[in-house]
């Protein structure tokens, strides 16, 4: 599963992109964030406030109960500020 990070989430976590293989019980986007938070203090810090973490799966916005499949492209980022 590929995970992309943008803006200050990318800066805090220290990478723009990584391949991860979460355990089988990580079934939803919410589960994935919980699992990522367990990977170390930088993750825990970056993902601490879920209200400012937006999630996209395969380039569409989803909620925290969205089911995950093996080949998904998951992106985590702050609220957008374009325009």
């Amino acid at each position, binding site marked *: 599963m590929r995970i992309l990070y*943008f803006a200050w989430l990318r800066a805090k976590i220290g990478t723009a992109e990584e391949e991860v293989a979460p355990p089988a019980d990580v079934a939803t986007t919410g589960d994935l964030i919980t699992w990522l938070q367990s990977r170390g203090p930088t993750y825990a810090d970056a993902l601490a406030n879920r209200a400012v973490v937006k999630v*996209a799966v395969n380039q*569409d*916005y989803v909620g925290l109960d969205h089911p995950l499949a093996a080949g998904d492209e998951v*992106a985590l980022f*702050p609220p*957008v*500020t*374009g*325009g």
Partner: protein
Amino acid sequence: MAIRVQAEDFDVGAELAALSDGNPSVGGVASFVGLVRDIAGGDAVSAMTLEHYPGMTERQLAAIEAEARARWPLDGVLIIHRHGRLLPGDRIVLAACASAHRAAAFEACWFLMDWLKTKAPFWKQEETPAGARWVAAKREDDQAAERWYKRTP
């Protein structure tokens, strides 16, 4: 479909003319050009860098264009959004709608801007005397976008 995400500047006059060229049923073209301001939250801004999510950006802008075309009778729609490092006064975005009717052109163009502000995956980082900082999403932008949600019974 006329969505462009690019680092380069764009030619506003040529882009607007192209929206109605060869289609004399167009009665008007409403547009908005967004520019980098030199001040934000009371602090001087010397530059701004726009990060984006390649692929998803185009996908979301195309969805916003499709929504505008479904809601209003439009002859042409254009969204150009830049990324990369920009200076105060630089153009960031152009949204434009061509229609037989001016109300449709104005409404649809305003809708494009309000929705892309809250849906297109761009993030701004400002350079200020105190260092670089990420721009926070504004509550007023969320409210502006919400105006356009259809009420469902």
